[in-house]
């Protein structure tokens, strides 16, 4: 196996006349979801055509044909293919993180939905709600006007005049 063959994504062909670059990816290394994810990111910048090379006597490969929507130089096409390779890695990592945290994500989502639906509040919170107060009661004196509160102080001996 040559150094180029051992790479996960290789540039198979660059066609500057058609502004097209073809990438080859080993099927075993990139799940199809990762390929779709990367293709989705590029679909507004380039024409993306996917193909599959079944491979006789060697592992199968996905072929990704990227064509610029505007004319592109060889450097730009190689840059585009490099960005696509980076996006593949990004999508693969993203997929791995989601898989690892799936239980946690599901739990948080379930709690959020239950909360929004007015479901399960903590039991001690509900128990403390009935404290025998009417809604007009003001045990902390919050509703007392400022003037009333400080009028008494004014009448006290030694208060400023």
């Amino acid at each position, binding site marked *: 196996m040559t150094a180029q063959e051992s790479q996960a994504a290789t540039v198979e062909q660059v066609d500057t006349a058609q502004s097209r670059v073809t990438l080859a990816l080993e099927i075993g290394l990139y799940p199809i979801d990762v390929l779709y994810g990367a293709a*989705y990111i590029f*679909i507004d910048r380039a024409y*993306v*055509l*996917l193909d*599959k090379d079944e491979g006789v006597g060697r592992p199968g490969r996905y072929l990704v044909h990227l064509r610029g929507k505007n004319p592109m130089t060889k450097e730009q096409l190689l840059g585009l293919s490099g960005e696509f390779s980076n996006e593949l890695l990004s999508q693969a990592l993203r997929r791995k993180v989601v898989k690892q945290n799936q239980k946690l994500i599901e739990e948080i989502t379930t709690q959020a939905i239950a909360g929004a639906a007015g479901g399960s509040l903590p039991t001690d919170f509900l128990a403390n709600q009935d404290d025998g107060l009417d809604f007009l009661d003001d045990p902390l004196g919050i509703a007392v006007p400022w003037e009333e509160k400080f009028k008494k102080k004014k009448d006290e001996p030694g208060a400023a005049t």
Partner: protein
Amino acid sequence: MATASQTVLLHRALYMQQAIKQAAETFADFASFAISRQGAHYAVAIADIDPEADGDVVAEFCNFALYNTMQRKRKKI
């Protein structure tokens, strides 16, 4: 006036037939499409391409077919 026809091969493992049909419906005003099976691929014969259509109708059609496939696969999950 319409231009000559083209055939595009879309691998059956990567593109869904319904997604291709949906893309063909989207571009029906700009060309006519005939979908058939050819080995591991769907062969889409695109004819009567409107020469006055903006952009590359065939390439845009392929992008739409891919996008529709992704959408449909996501719904399945």
